[in-house]
């Protein structure tokens, strides 16, 4: 393996080749348990030694006890770590990734490479110190969790990532030796300046909530005249500080790059993460602007990717495509995940979609009678179907624009309650994979809703036929041919 380190190539494995993760990875994974156990045992025995019936005994007993504990801990943890390392093996063949783990309960997992939805290279702080990284990939083979390889040397993780992605893309570099893979070069697209990250977190809805609570506390102190209230609120302030810290360090150094393997996101200050989303794996894109961010013209971009989940706190915001950015940045990242917007003037259309209100640029908003249900937002709730995607806009204070490519539509539904029935309105819902984006058009005119329901079902069916599920490494830029085909088809069909 040492000769591979000089050249960025990787050869896929045969059925008999197995590899092991880095020997110290169980320690990197389990260091917290080691520290906790040592602390508890150590403290208990020290207390026992110091707080015995005869008080502190300055003989050699405590030293012996500490040494015994240390020895036992080293042996126990050493054996378990060695076994866990010894029984973890992996293999990357041309079609599958195999990972075998477990000492007592053995687990063998196999992932189909052409089902790979996204690959992350994660480096927690301790792993970074040792130059190690975790490789994590989503396969969407029926809702199972991601497969993980922790930990590998960083170069090795990158090589594996390149190999898996190249196999999924169907790249063959040298027909004479098809097992050879070279890592694709990435081209930087944009980097979010650190100042803007900090400002975006400070001017977020979290700060607004914080400010409200702070004002309430201030009022309470002035009213009661007791400063002691502040002491009771220290845990709250600590939690707030931790929330700010987590959000700022998590999004710090956010960089977006494009490689032939897909869109690559780099971010994180202490724990760094490099996410790769191959072309065509983005199920939906959502652009959001809160009330305060409107002053700065900032937007946040989320994506639905199968396997990423809803982007809740434990997923660490993996669904974020751009934590904060102006309109040019938004258009730049949109162009990466969504190369063909299906219109000739994307900037104007997306601006109309992000700002509203009204029917500009082909958007259709709710009819006048919707004012009874939706007095503020009725002119903002709107939709537009381009030849490649459906754009839905909603929200008056906090604005949302969701974009779903037609070929990624899962299912559709129409809803109508009694009040909406009386007003001749209908809600349209589009179902995407599990994620933060749930596209919906509120309170459409009945006729428009029925038309959209029918047309969208037909458009999705056509788009699925034109975009077969195939490796994405094509001689021409992604999907141009396919979408041109769709365009001519739509023109021939005639509206």
């Amino acid at each position, binding site marked *: 393996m040492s000769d591979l380190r000089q050249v960025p190539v990787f050869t896929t494995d045969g059925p008999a080749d197995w590899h092991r993760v880095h020997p110290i990875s169980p320690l990197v994974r389990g260091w917290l348990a080691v520290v906790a156990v040592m602390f508890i045992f150590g403290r208990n025995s020290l207390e026992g030694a110091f707080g015995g019936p005869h008080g502190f005994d300055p003989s050699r007993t405590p030293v012996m006890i500490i040494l015994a504990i240390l020895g036992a801990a080293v042996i126990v943890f050493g054996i378990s770590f060695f076994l866990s390392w010894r029984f973890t093996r992996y293999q990357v063949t041309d079609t599958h990734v195999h990972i075998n783990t477990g000492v007592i309960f053995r687990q063998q997992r196999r992932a189909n490479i052409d089902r790979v939805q996204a690959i992350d290279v994660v480096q927690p702080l301790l792993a970074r110190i040792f130059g190690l990284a975790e490789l994590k990939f989503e396969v*969407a083979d029926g809702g199972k969790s991601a497969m993980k390889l922790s930990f590998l040397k960083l170069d090795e993780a990158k090589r594996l990532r390149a190999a898996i992605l190249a196999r999924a893309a169907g790249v063959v570099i040298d027909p004479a030796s098809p097992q050879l893979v070279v890592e694709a070069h990435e081209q930087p697209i944009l980097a979010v300046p650190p100042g803007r990250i900090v400002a975006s977190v400070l001017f977020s809805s979290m700060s607004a909530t914080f400010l409200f609570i702070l004002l309430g506390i201030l009022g309470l102190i002035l009213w009661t005249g007791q400063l002691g209230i502040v002491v009771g609120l220290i845990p709250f302030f600590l939690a707030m500080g931790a929330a700010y810290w987590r959000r700022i360090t998590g999004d710090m150094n956010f960089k977006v790059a494009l490689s032939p393997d897909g869109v690559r996101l780099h971010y994180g200050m202490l724990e760094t993460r490099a996410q790769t989303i191959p072309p065509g794996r983005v199920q939906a894109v959502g652009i959001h602007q809160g009330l305060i961010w409107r002053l700065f013209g900032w937007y946040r971009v989320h994506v639905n990717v199968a396997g990423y989940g809803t982007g809740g706190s434990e997923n660490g915001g993996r669904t974020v495509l751009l934590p904060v950015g102006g309109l040019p940045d938004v258009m730049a990242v949109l162009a990466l995940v969504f190369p063909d917007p299906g219109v000739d003037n994307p900037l104007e259309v997306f601006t109309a979609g992000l700002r509203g209100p009204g029917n500009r640029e082909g958007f259709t908003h709710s009819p006048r009678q919707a004012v009874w249900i939706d007095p503020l937002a009725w002119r903002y709730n709107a939709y537009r179907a381009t030849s490649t995607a459906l754009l839905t806009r909603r929200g008056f204070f906090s604005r949302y624009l969701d974009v779903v490519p037609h*070929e990624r539509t899962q299912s559709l539904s129409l809803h109508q309650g009694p009040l909406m029935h009386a007003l*001749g309105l209908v809600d349209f819902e589009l179902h995407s994979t599990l994620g933060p984006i749930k596209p919906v058009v509120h309170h459409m005119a009945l006729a428009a809703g029925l038309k959209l329901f029918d047309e969208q079902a037909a458009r999705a069916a056509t788009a699925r036929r034109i975009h077969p599920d195939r490796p994405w490494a094509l001689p021409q830029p992604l999907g141009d041919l396919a979408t041109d085909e769709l365009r001519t088809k739509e023109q021939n069909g005639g509206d």
Partner: protein
Amino acid sequence: MAEPMTTPLRHHSAIDPENVKFLPVSGKLITARFIESGASGLFWLALAAIPLILRLTGVWASYPGWLAWLVPAVVLIAVLWTLALIPRQVRAIGYAERDDDLLIRRGILFHRVMVVPYGRMQYVDVTMGPLERMLGLSSIHLHTASPGTNAILNGLPAPEAARLREQLTARGEAKLAGL
């Protein structure tokens, strides 16, 4: 199988797509729902009537009489209302197989129409509970990669459910698209 499965659904709502003939589910689903709702209704009614019984038997004489009668009365009306709605609700459930997708509709006051493309189906569940088995009914649940797809059809006659499952899986395989 006594149910005429070929007659289109009589109920029609404003949001049904045009030129689609919805097929109804079995009328036996009304019986099944009556038994289910009736049993749970009796349970709640019995629960609500406990203070009344205690008062009438003199154990809890201080309990206000109007409240003792009002609570069971309200529960009784709610139960009867639920039961009265069942036949119309069941008759409003319909499905239609189109070339590319399956349509499912339901609801009288709160309408819903859903379209599930065959190529998007990940798997199809056919289930049969004890009550359903007695009546010869099955439920069919379509799953896509989206949690929003809540496509369940209750009260299909068992042979029709089996036919639909075969049909759906065959069409799904023919049209299967990647995520």
